[in-house]
């Protein structure tokens, strides 16, 4: 081990040695890519469409005009991608020259991407700046194409929208393609690769867009409870005494309630929506994290460096958040990937029970709900199940890899 290796560098090294976990991090890339590039894969807005008088670019405009905040967020990530990628490649070379570890580079690059995305979100929330979508509700019909002869919409590979209904293609199996006589719209000639649901919506498109919801629910809810848990746990562990007693009691009480049942109750009573789901998972999940952090902080509190910081006259806030917390984070970080996997499952099961994402919005769970009512249409069940299984496996692998990497006993054995 080199002399200026930090703790996280060591963890990353350990993590890389675990082939499965390292592979899982890279398998995460296609899932995130699926979420970010969803409009590039599936969209019912043509990239280019000529209606005889003018050339239209509905796809590009639709990027900036999404009703769902989650879609808007990911579209901004898509818009930011071409800016971020070259910058990161260039930066990566510099960082590598400076000898920064791979894990650290990956981490910083992701942080930059998130920051860029959020900036773009804020920027284009000013409606004057964004290209207006005049064609959001327009159906690009074949008649127009026919009368104009040569011109025809140019689409992304799967030319269907996540909520685009078509009562002519209800419950069709995978690879179904409309017979040519029934073509009405410009995108009717394409096959439904994974079949359609009860309103003729394309399952592949819904699964691709559902990735966005799953990932957002996983990240945001875990983010919420990780922050609450860390702060509460650190306060309890650091100050001890009555505060500790009180917080420990609260933790104990909340942990008594079966978590899924509690989440289901709260979500159903407050009103089902994706934001409520994220918040409810966030506020019911913190006690276990707080308990872990509290234990760790209790251990760290009497360490020499804390006494040194106190002797230097640092305030409590600085000691807790700058010194103790970074050293006590590891158990909470191990819990995070498992938590994400759990949150994704929870969201899917809430949607399955009908308390999830509002119906037309695409989500894996809502496709499963349809499947649970119609077992004869196997494609409704199998494909979202594969999606959930794959994602959950990846996060679990990352979690167990992280756990092994942070476990000092395993480290000494290697």
């Amino acid at each position: 081990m080199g002399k200026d290796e930090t703790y996280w560098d060591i963890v990353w090294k350990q993590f890389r040695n675990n082939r499965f976990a390292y592979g899982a991090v890279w398998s995460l890339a296609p899932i995130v890519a699926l979420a970010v590039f969803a409009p590039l894969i599936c969209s019912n807005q043509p990239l280019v469409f000529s209606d005889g008088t003018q050339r239209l670019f509905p796809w590009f405009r639709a990027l900036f005009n999404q009703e769902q905040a989650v879609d808007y967020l990911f579209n901004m990530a898509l818009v930011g991608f071409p800016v971020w990628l070259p910058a990161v490649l260039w930066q990566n070379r510099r960082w590598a020259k400076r000898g920064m570890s791979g894990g650290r580079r990956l981490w910083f690059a992701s942080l930059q991407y998130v920051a860029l995305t959020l900036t773009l979100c804020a920027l284009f929330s000013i409606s004057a700046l964004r290209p207006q979508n005049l064609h959001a509700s327009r159906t690009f019909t074949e008649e127009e194409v026919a009368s104009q002869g040569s011109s025809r919409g140019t689409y992304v590979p799967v030319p269907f929208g996540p909520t685009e209904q078509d009562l002519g293609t209800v419950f069709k199996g995978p690879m179904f393609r409309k017979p040519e006589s029934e073509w009405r719209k410009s995108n009717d000639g394409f096959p439904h690769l994974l079949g359609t649901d009860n309103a003729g919506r394309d399952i592949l498109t819904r699964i691709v867009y559902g990735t966005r919801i799953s990932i957002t629910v996983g990240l945001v809810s875990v983010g919420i409870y990780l922050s609450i848990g860390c702060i509460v746990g650190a306060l309890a562990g650091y100050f001890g005494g009555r505060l500790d007693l009180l917080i420990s009691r609260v933790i104990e009480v909340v942990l008594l309630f079966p978590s899924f049942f509690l989440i289901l109750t709260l979500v159903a009573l407050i009103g089902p929506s994706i934001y409520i789901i994220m918040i409810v998972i966030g506020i019911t999940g913190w006690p276990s994290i707080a308990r872990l952090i509290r234990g760790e902080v209790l251990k760290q509190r009497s360490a020499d460096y804390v006494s040194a910081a106190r002797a230097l006259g640092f305030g409590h806030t600085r000691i807790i958040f700058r010194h103790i917390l970074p050293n006590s984070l590891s158990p909470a970080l191990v819990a995070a990937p498992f938590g994400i996997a759990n949150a994704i499952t929870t969201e899917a099961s809430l949607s399955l029970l009908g308390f999830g994402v509002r119906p037309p919005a695409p989500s894996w769970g809502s496709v499963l709900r349809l499947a649970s009512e119609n077992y004869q249409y196997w494609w409704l069940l199998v494909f979202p199940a594969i999606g959930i299984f794959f994602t959950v496996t990846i996060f679990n692998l990352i979690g167990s890899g992280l756990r092994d990497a942070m476990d000092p006993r395993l480290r000494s054995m290697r």
Partner: protein
Amino acid sequence: MWTYVIRRIVAMIPTLFGVTVVSFCIMQLAPGDPLMIQAGSAGGAGESTQTREAFLVQKRDLKLDKPLVINLNYYRDFASPMKSAAYFEARSIDQVREDVAVLAKAADAESIARLAFLRSLKIPDFDSSLTNPDKHGALARKIQTWVQIFCEDTGAHGVPATIALLDATEGDLHQKIGAIRCLSRMVVAPFVFTYSSHPSEAETPKVVSAWKEWWRKNEKKFPPLDEDRRQALERKFTPLTTELDRSTLFTRLEEAGFDREDMPFLAGKLLSSGSLPERFVAAVTMKLLVAQPLRMDVPIDARPEAVADVAENWKVHYESNSTEYHPSGLTRAVRVLTDTQYAHMVVRLATFNFGRSALTTREPVSERIWAAVKVSAPLMLLSQALIYLIAVPLGVVCAVRRGRPADYAISLVLFMLYSMPSFIVGMLCLMALCYGKPFKWFPMLGLHSEGAAGMTWGTWLVDYGWHSILPVICLALFNLAGLAMYSRSSMLDVLGQDYIRTARAKGVREFHVIFKHALRNGLIPIITLFSSFLPAMLGGSVLVEYLFGIPGMGRLSFYSIEQKDFPTLMALIYIDAIVVMLSILLSDLLYVVVDPRISFSATGEG
């Protein structure tokens, strides 16, 4: 050991208190008043499909008309608000609309008082609607709704003030009508005419006084009976008094065929000092004959005679219950804290008296839960057994064969199972093995075939097993994988210990090393996992039972959430928490029993 158990149970009391607080907070999410929602305020979350009556019954059952934690109504003076409430109660919607226009100017002292009263009701957008004439119609509707809710929530506290109103304004008919209408909203069933399903002597005074009042008014209408008729009735009546079951009593009463002419006989039975069964049967019979003995409500345009009559009834009610309406100073002081939503809920939960379901069937909650437990408990036990019987040996095999293909294969399968949510396994099973795509080996729904009741116990058992195998597997899988992985690592820890090496060096046979030295120690941490499985299973069973159509705890939870059945939901949350708490205690105790290195004194907080 017992001192330890007792100490732990005492330590549970603050935790239970916390559980009630959390339950109480959840309860606050209950949908608001349907009337309020109709009147256009976002009163509650979620859409409510209940009727107004069902809601009121539930509201009073759950004491939702009381203040949250401190009840100061015992010290409030209701004279002026009741006067304003009575004023609005006696006016039709159009009149209220005119009033609103007057109120907007707020000239005289009376309107100012009324305005202050309306403001205190916290009607949403009150002031903005008041200044805007276009909204006066909607505002009038809202005022009526909120005044009604005010009366219902005030309850008995406002009765003395309203009765005073009834007495004081001898001449003003409107005021009287309003007061009566307020009273009929405030007091539920002012007179009790029949006994409850389990009659007791304590109910007698109320029932007797109610009928006495009715009889005093109506005695003249019934001619006295001659002796023959009286004896015939006596013969008919006496055998009925031995009938204990209520429903058969009703059918027998119908057969007996009493009619209104016989009223003097029945009244005599009830009002003279008869025995409890006699009074009970007499009261039931009289209630059957007279549907509405005493009128307690009047329409807005009632005639003075009717009003006077009803007012008379109310005064009688008030006087006969004056102790209730004027509690002693001590009672009042105590009730400030005990007559609140929270206190009532704590009492209900602490005594396991969960009341009745909010559904139209009005079943007692405890019966519903008991029926569900009887379905769920065997499934839970089976799956727990399955988990421990399969997972521990698997973990041991993996640990012993560490790094060999068997370990890799088993670990891989376990990891995949761990990542497979139970509902996905369940749905795949349902599709592939039950629905007929491609196999139709197991039933889709339920735990029993039709006609299971008539089976011999052998076939019944086979039938039960056939129905329950898939749900049990689904319940078990996720935890099974977790436990197996855990027992693997726990065994690995133990196998690396020095005493294992010593045992091997001693020449102990490998079988003994693993099962006697290692496994016993490796099992210790596994036992504690018992407590963490239970909450997971209670929650997870919601999905599995929903998918497989099993009428157990999980499906009951789901339906009570879906149908907004709050009494059941509260009880379920509470019971689940207690079960988890007890299982934590149990696993702590097991820990100490299994591991001699840990003593009761050292475990302290657990």
